[in-house]
């Protein structure tokens, strides 16, 4: 708006430019000092040691901001504008142990890691994310909190004989997931169609835009649970992958604290309660 005002014409050309540069400089200055003060308060807090009262470095003091692809039930999904699910409850329980208020922020799955690395938006990733060596190069992971596998979903009534059957077909995957990596390595000759979340991939399968979808087994099970979409899990793919919470490599204290809280939750039964709430059974 200020630009339009300047363009209004009562300033000379030279003055216009000076004003513009000044305005930009002002905005930058405000933004930079804003950031700086935030990090200052953060670092000054990390003086605590192994004793219980370690003040954790988070983006907003007293809060734990969690990045999540909230279209992945039963791990995380949006109920209205409130996030709910296994990961959400688990994270809240962890937040309680850490004395931090947990807030979920929705983010596309494949941008979670770059965003966490860039910093400033959320402290933790809780998004049914598998602990993988190539991801571990980018970020740290907490201890595993859930064992998962992959699944292949096709139209109901399709007989599936093996990955060769998908050669020349279109296979829908969620972008950046282990399902995508599995399909890339194991389904040769198929075109992989990446979607931004699992629900979009299933919608495309239902519409016939793709011939199959590779997705995490518990999520496929949940999505195909009771609504009659004409889709079925045709193969369970044992991958034995494990989900973990992602934390920036710059914040090892937080990773340690989450691991500690996770262990406590597992031993005091909270984990089992949450597990039973979302999966209907107790963990083995």
């Amino acid at each position, binding site marked *: 708006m200020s630009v339009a005002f300047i363009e209004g014409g009562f300033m000379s050309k030279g003055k216009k430019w000076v004003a513009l540069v000044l305005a930009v400089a002002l905005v930058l200055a405000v933004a930079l000092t804003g950031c700086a003060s935030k990090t200052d308060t953060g670092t000054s807090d990390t003086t605590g040691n192994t004793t219980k009262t370690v003040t954790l470095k988070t983006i907003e003091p007293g809060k734990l901001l969690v990045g999540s692809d909230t279209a992945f039930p039963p791990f995380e999904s949006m109920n209205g504008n409130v996030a709910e699910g296994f990961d959400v409850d688990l994270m809240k329980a962890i937040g309680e142990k850490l004395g931090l208020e947990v807030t979920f922020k929705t983010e596309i799955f494949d941008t979670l890691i770059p965003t966490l690395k860039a910093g400033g938006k959320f402290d933790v990733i809780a998004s049914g994310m598998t602990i993988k*060596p190539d991801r571990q190069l980018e970020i740290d992971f907490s201890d595993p909190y859930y064992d998962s596998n992959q699944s292949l979903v096709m139209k109901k009534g399709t007989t599936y004989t093996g990955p060769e059957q998908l050669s020349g077909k279109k296979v829908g995957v969620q972008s950046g997931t282990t399902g995508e990596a599995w399909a890339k390595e*194991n389904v040769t000759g198929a075109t992989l169609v990446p979607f931004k979340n699992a629900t979009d991939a299933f919608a495309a399968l239902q519409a016939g*835009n*793709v011939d199959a979808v590779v997705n995490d087994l518990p999520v496929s099970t949940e999505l195909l649970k009771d609504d009659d979409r004409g889709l079925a899990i045709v193969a369970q793919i*044992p991958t034995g992958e494990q989900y973990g919470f992602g934390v920036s490599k710059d914040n090892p204290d937080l990773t340690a604290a989450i691991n500690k809280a996770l262990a406590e939750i597992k031993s005091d039964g909270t984990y089992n309660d949450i597990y039973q709430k979302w999966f209907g059974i107790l963990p083995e």
Partner: protein
Amino acid sequence: MGHPNRRRTLRLFSLAIAGIVLTCAFATQAIAMTGAKVTVDRDTGGQLTRFTFAATSGQDEPVTRIDFLFPEGFDPADAKVDVTLLEGLKRLSTSFEQSIDPQTGVVSVMFDAPVPPKSNYLIQVRDVMTPIAGGTYELPVQYTVEASGTSSPEVRSVSGLTFKYNTPPREEVISRWLDSQAWVKMWNSVKVLDLFLKPQQFVRAVPLLFAGWLMSLSLVLSAFPISIMGGLGTAFMKMSKVPPVRWLASIYINVIRGTPLFLQIFVVFIGLRTTGLRFPDYLSAVVVLAFNSSAYLAEIFRAGIQSISKGQFEAASSLGMTYWQAMRYVIIPQTVRRVLPTMTSEFILLFKDTALFAAVGIFELMLRSQNFVARSGNLTAYVVAALYYLIITIPLINLVGRLEYKLAQSEHGVTAPTGKRRARGGVGPLSGPDFDATAAKHESR
């Protein structure tokens, strides 16, 4: 088909063959691992690669050790091994030791306790350097079955496990060369530069996104001519003297302009297809774009036509011209000139809007860059995509500016306000109420 007798002998023969094969299979398969396969995570050679071995052990196979005999040219010296064992879908805990013989290229996994029979094995051998030349290679695997009672430990082998990759293309080679350069390391040590302008990723993204750029361009180039016709037709319908025709055009224009293009795309790509009505992806995309753009162009054309003063019509009809003759020879030629800048703007918008097709799996510029970012965890591909969009839009934005300037000069004989930057605002002589409305709605599409 054949002679009945011959057919019978043939069938007998094939039965016998099948029998032999089956007994052979039984003899070996019963004790061997099943469903064994090896996959690699890279498409090209000459780089650190992850090998994944998947198999299920037989009923009588408590395995204590697995050896991977990497062929000549593969260097597993710095390899790391991950083991995942499952019973069905349930993950088993495991402990093992790995040993690597760099001379022979053998990577061994020794389990602390024998793995129960009928387990699913997923063994990843990471960071194995592969030879640069592509092709199909075989990875022989041997495994040791624990001694049971009378028999001693037995070494069994799985052969025929092949994998393949290609020789890296030129950009890949350049990118790897960049990896080793000192200035690249310096450059990448700045977080922002590393995230948005990583030279290695840049080199990779440019050729990869080119196909997407062509796709976006071809979508809009196919759709735009159709929407010009559609727009013109709709404009005349909207100006028609017959009320129902006018209403129809109004409804169409308002519905299309009043809903997001994103929604329209989903209606065609998901909605219609769920009901069984489906066209090829490309055709559907062109139709949605043309349908959408027609509504905007219709308003642009209508406003353009109506901005020509009524006097011209009167003058034309006083010369004995019919309505359509006046249109054809007097009004339209003037309209074209006036409408050209706004039309070009519409083209720019439409070109940018092709990005929305990423959501329905059309491999245009946006989807390709998203994929690239997802795979690399680096945002450089977005910058490359931006450059590809700008190659088209910047010259056109310039063109709009110049067209407006010329138009203003010819109509008013005055200098237009520094036009380029205000392409969306008042469009010189056309800035009647209609035009502002059209332009304003555009931006929020």
